[in-house]
């Protein structure tokens, strides 16, 4: 198998095809600290792309509650268990993954280590939301949770990976990664329903359509992206947790590009399960309140605590540039490729053509009005 370089695991790895990075890579950052699992993104995607007969069970975008929630059921636990030990070793300032990726751990007969979910695995997309894995414990005067008091919401879409397992596994080469934006698509004319992609994708974001009897997946709303507009799930996010754009590799990181700034410069956003070896392109700001560091390490890799430190600086007002970048989340539906924080007061986002897409005050101005309105001769209930 050819060797390719995966910067997320800090080493070369085996992949089915030669390295062929797209001209630019569509990417996004999700701030898990702001997600409230309202499922607006899920509904936006559902109504746009998966409303047809045969797609009832499909959620190209879903939001699951960690640690117990998962859709399809147990996708992460099953993949990680099959993968075996996942050891990271620190060399200097960097961590190198010394375990096997799903390409390297594939059985002799397979291209990729994977499994096919059962239909019932898809039947409970919301199972685990705000739930425990065991019954509550009855103490003398109160009920106690059987585990630490933390959970968080994890919105998930296709990661449009740099090294997609779905693409590697398709013997028909019916899956392709677009050179212009790195979006991974299934050719609906060429697909022969082998479901190798459903089996191979560790994130389980390729689905089998029960009626058309071929496979489908998230298309990153490419018709919108081609017009410089954000995907539907991103621009409808009411929690403003999402930032969409194009990401460069670390060696070509542009500090003015909001995605590069969050991922490469401030290193506040991390890939999901980087040890699988796909170089996924959806990045997550880890939750700050999770007390189990090992869980975060497992889910987001060894830089999880470092990312949290960076994030906390912004929350404490010590990094206004990062605050500015985070304020761009869902501030416009136009794709921004540059941003600037002006005198620590405003953040401005620019489109690819250099046009100003949005301008936001870093600190929202507060106007305090008198308690008594002289003109109307009334007292105000709300003075700010």
């Amino acid at each position: 198998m050819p060797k390719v370089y995966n910067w997320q695991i800090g080493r070369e790895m085996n992949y089915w095809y030669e390295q062929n990075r797209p001209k630019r890579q569509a990417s996004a950052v999700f701030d898990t600290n702001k997600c409230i699992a309202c499922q607006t993104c899920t509904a936006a995607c559902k109504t746009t792309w998966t409303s047809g007969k045969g797609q009832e069970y499909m959620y190209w975008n879903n939001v699951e509650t960690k640690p117990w929630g998962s859709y399809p059921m147990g996708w992460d636990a099953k993949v990680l268990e099959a993968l075996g030990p996942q050891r990271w070793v620190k060399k200097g300032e960097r961590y190198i993954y010394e375990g096997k990726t799903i390409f390297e751990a594939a059985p002799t007969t397979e291209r990729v280590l994977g499994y096919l979910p059962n239909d019932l695995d898809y039947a409970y997309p919301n199972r685990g939301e705000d739930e425990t894995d065991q019954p509550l414990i009855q103490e003398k005067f109160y009920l106690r949770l059987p585990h630490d008091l933390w959970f968080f919401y994890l919105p998930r879409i296709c990661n449009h990976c740099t090294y997609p397992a779905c693409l590697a596994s398709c013997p028909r080469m019916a899956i392709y990664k677009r050179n212009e934006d790195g979006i991974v698509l299934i050719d609906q004319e060429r697909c022969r329903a082998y479901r190798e992609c459903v089996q191979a994708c560790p994130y389980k974001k390729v689905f089998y359509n029960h009626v058309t009897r071929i496979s489908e997946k998230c298309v990153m709303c490419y018709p919108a992206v081609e017009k410089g507009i954000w995907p539907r799930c991103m621009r409808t996010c009411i929690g403003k947790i999402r930032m969409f754009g194009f990401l460069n590799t670390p060696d070509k990181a542009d500090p003015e590009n909001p995605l590069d700034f969050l991922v490469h410069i401030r290193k506040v956003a991390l890939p999901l399960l980087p040890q699988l070896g796909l170089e996924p392109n959806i990045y997550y700001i880890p939750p700050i309140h999770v007390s189990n560091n090992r869980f975060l390490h497992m889910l987001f890799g060894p830089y999880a605590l470092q990312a949290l430190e960076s994030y906390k600086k912004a929350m404490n007002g010590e990094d206004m540039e990062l605050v500015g970048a985070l304020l761009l989340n869902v501030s416009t539906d136009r794709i921004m490729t540059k941003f600037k924080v002006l005198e620590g007061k405003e953040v401005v986002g620019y489109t690819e053509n250099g046009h100003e897409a949005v301008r936001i005050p870093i600190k929202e101005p507060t106007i305090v009005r008198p308690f008594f309105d002289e003109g109307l001769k009334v007292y105000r209930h709300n003075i700010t």
Partner: protein
Amino acid sequence: MSEKELQKKKERKKLSLPIFIALAAVASISLTFFIKRLQEKPKVKPEADIIAAKVEKVPFNDPFSPLWEKVPSYSIPLTQQATVKPMKFTTPKDPLKVKAVHDGEWIAFLLEWNDTSPDIHTIKTKEFRDACAVLLTNYPAPPEAWFMGTKDYPATILHWKADWQMDIDEGFQDLEKAFPNLSIDMYPPMKEAIVRGKPPPTKDLPEEARAWMVGWKSGNPLSLPDKKSPVEKLIGIGPGSLTPLPTQDASGKGIWKVGVWRVVLSKKMKGSDSKEGEINLLSEKMYSVAFTLWSGHEGDRGSRKNPSMLKTLYIE
């Protein structure tokens, strides 16, 4: 010795010379013909693994036609697929039984194999169909033509699918077949709610609702609810190159009875898509052929299959 006897002896002597001459002439003519015959190309049937017998009319949709009992059956061993990943390392216990006939216009193959559990649906994510295929290419094909043909030896493939057979025999096997308790509110852009939550048959969905059924909309043969034949005619020029041919005129039928699949796959001998590489078959000619089985309950699909080696096919 009497005079009479002497007279007879003289007469015999007189006769023996012309007889000898006549015999010598016959022998020399025979020898000439024999030598000439030796110099000619022999018109005997060449040795072939399978001979497609000439019949009056091909029973292209009847795996139980009495005609099949009159033609020889060939036992074709199946092997593992250990060349292209994903692979299949297990092999069926019994060889595949193959018969072949032609009538000058159509050629048909009867494939018969044991299968205790017929897999006839592909609705659920983990459901895979039983299927079989015949690969035809020109003779003598290089060994690599076995892998779905080559550019110089394109493979015409007849692919029978058990789920397509069900779609034809019993109507489109819709979502409700796998999920009988399914309930749905609406499918956009239908404006009204679906009565009692029971979705309309896929075939009856309005044109606008098909926008969400991209496979169908884009014309993928697997996604079309209205199947015409259980046998798909495809062309291959190597692994991963399988492409449906524009004229889908292959025919056939498969019937599962008491643990045995009997499937007929047939095509026109003169390829209707010969411009795209479809093979033209002629009488008294040799071709290369291979057979493949997919066992649904073993998760077979694509390259997870049991093919035969490349065999020779002689068309009478």
